């Protein structure tokens, strides 16, 4: 059912469990997982600006992801994307790769006392070309 799964990661606590879940789902259908870390570039910089600290951070996140995937025995490919905005970059990547599922890990955040999904998740939910699963760890597990 889910042959190609796209998992955007951002270095949050939710990444580990999200990757494990993605590997389990992909293994069941003998599918593949693409993990992307998106580096958002501000408009004051050219799009191909190499901000070493951000790239290093993205590489470290993806290193951890590959280790987790190895533990789960999943087939994972990782990629660093640079874009102006994260949400459109994820949707665009999903369209380009023709994925059958986007799996995103979220953490519980509040803004002005209300639960907030931020800007990226609502954009992906609204514009995604395929099903989207949001995975949130329970606060007890944390």
């Amino acid at each position, binding site marked *: 059912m889910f042959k190609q799964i796209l998992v955007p990661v951002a270095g949050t606590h939710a990444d580990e469990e999200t990757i494990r879940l993605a590997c389990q789902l992909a293994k069941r259908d003998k599918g593949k997982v693409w993990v992307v870390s998106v580096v958002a570039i*501000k*408009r*004051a910089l050219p799009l*191909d600006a190499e901000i070493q*600290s951000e790239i290093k951070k993205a*590489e470290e996140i993806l290193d951890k992801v590959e280790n987790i995937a190895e533990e789960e025995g999943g087939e994972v490919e990782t990629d660093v*994307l640079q*874009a102006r905005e994260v949400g*459109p970059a994820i949707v665009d990547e999903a369209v380009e790769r023709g994925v059958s599922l986007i799996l995103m890990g979220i953490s519980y955040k509040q803004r002005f006392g209300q639960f907030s999904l931020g800007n990226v998740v609502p954009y992906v939910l609204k514009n995604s070309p395929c099903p989207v699963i949001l995975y949130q760890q329970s606060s007890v597990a944390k």
Partner: protein
Amino acid sequence: MPDNLPRKPGDRVFRPRRIKRFHLKRVLGVPALFSIGYGDVGSSIYYALGVVALVALGATPIALGVAGVIYIFNALTYAEGSAMIPEGGGSASYARHAFNNLIGFISGWVLMLSYIATMAISAYTIPPYLSYFWPVLNNASISTVVAMGIIGFLMMINVLGVKESTRLNIFFIFVDVVTQVTIVVLGIVLILRVNPSVLVQNMFGEGNWPSTQNLVMGIALAALCFTGVESVSQHGQETRHPEKRMPQAYVLMIVVVLILFAGISIVALSAMTPQMLGDPVNGWARDPVAGIAANLPSQMLQDIFKPLVAILAASILLTATNAGLLGISRLTYNLSTNHQLPAALGRVHPRFRTPYMAIIIFCAIAIFMLAPGFTNPDFFADLGALYVFGSLLCFAFAHAAIISLRIKKSDMTRPFKLRWNINFKGKDLPVTAILGLLSNIGIWIVVMVTQPFSRWAGLGWMAGGLVIYFVYFLYRRFRKEHSNDWEIKLDKK
């Protein structure tokens, strides 16, 4: 390995990057590119019309027409260049590919002067339009302070990296185009059609036709109106299928801009005398489109268009000021990354992830440029001449680069190849680029000879840039020769 022991080459650990090159998400299409370019050029009519009329008087539409033809040459050259070399950097990039690093730097450096002048002049023109709501802004000192404050505000938000809303920008540009079209139609129907002799009198009547020198200077200043080509080219790396989309955006800009500007200038001279249009103190030189709205022959239309023009002008000019700031910020980063400027200028803030040094320094220069506004309201014509000094040279480099690439790299892929070529020693050279090169250089020489402020300020800017370039070049060479380190150069490809 302890830090105090000297490193040997074998101590370096080479870790190849995960992927050969990270992927850039290209998202821009023709509408977005058009809005970026039009946001730049569409704003210039709000001040350039007055600057040109200050010098060219009744010949303003003629000056704009001639500058419009040169604009076509410029836009076509950039269409070929951006399709062929779809990286940010514009003429600096074309010049680097066609010639060498030094020429690329000079082109980029004069472009930076244009960006700074654009920022200053756009910010300086906002208070006169807003004086519809707050008449105190007509005071030269107060409006200069406000203009400086606008640049300071934009400096702050760009250092912090606050996002601008693309949708809002596109909305304002759409409304702006519709408003300008409406003003043109109303002006033609209600003013020009009723009494066509007014236009003839205002253009050719006694005292309304400029001297030859002023006419040529008016054509040079009219180049102020036709910006936007560099802004579009700077977004090459973000454009989907740039080889197709960028030429399409350029062609669309040519059509819309020429029609609108021709119409606006004719309506302006139908609605008021050239002396009123070009007077920066008692007339409408600093807010010419507001002048057109104020002279519409119906009180109801005036009541609608005067506040509308004030709001639109302020928003479009704010966008243009910000666009100038973003342009200079990206260009500085490009130049410093290519070792054409000191790396310190391209330093990125660790928290805000913005090139804060470049933003702060060049905003400070733009604010400094506004200082004469306290005592001399005419000085914005000097700012316009300074902009023209930089932009004409920059366009000339672009034309020269395209011609040079036709000769040196004739087998390079050209998704958009200019037609109307002449054959020179077996190479096809585009006629529009040759004409563009000659006309831009010719007008630049006129500006250099007739405008002392832009001559000395422009040459001083270039001299300063060359000093920075060569000092940095020698510093890097000295460091390399005396360094114990050896480095592996990673192939970006």
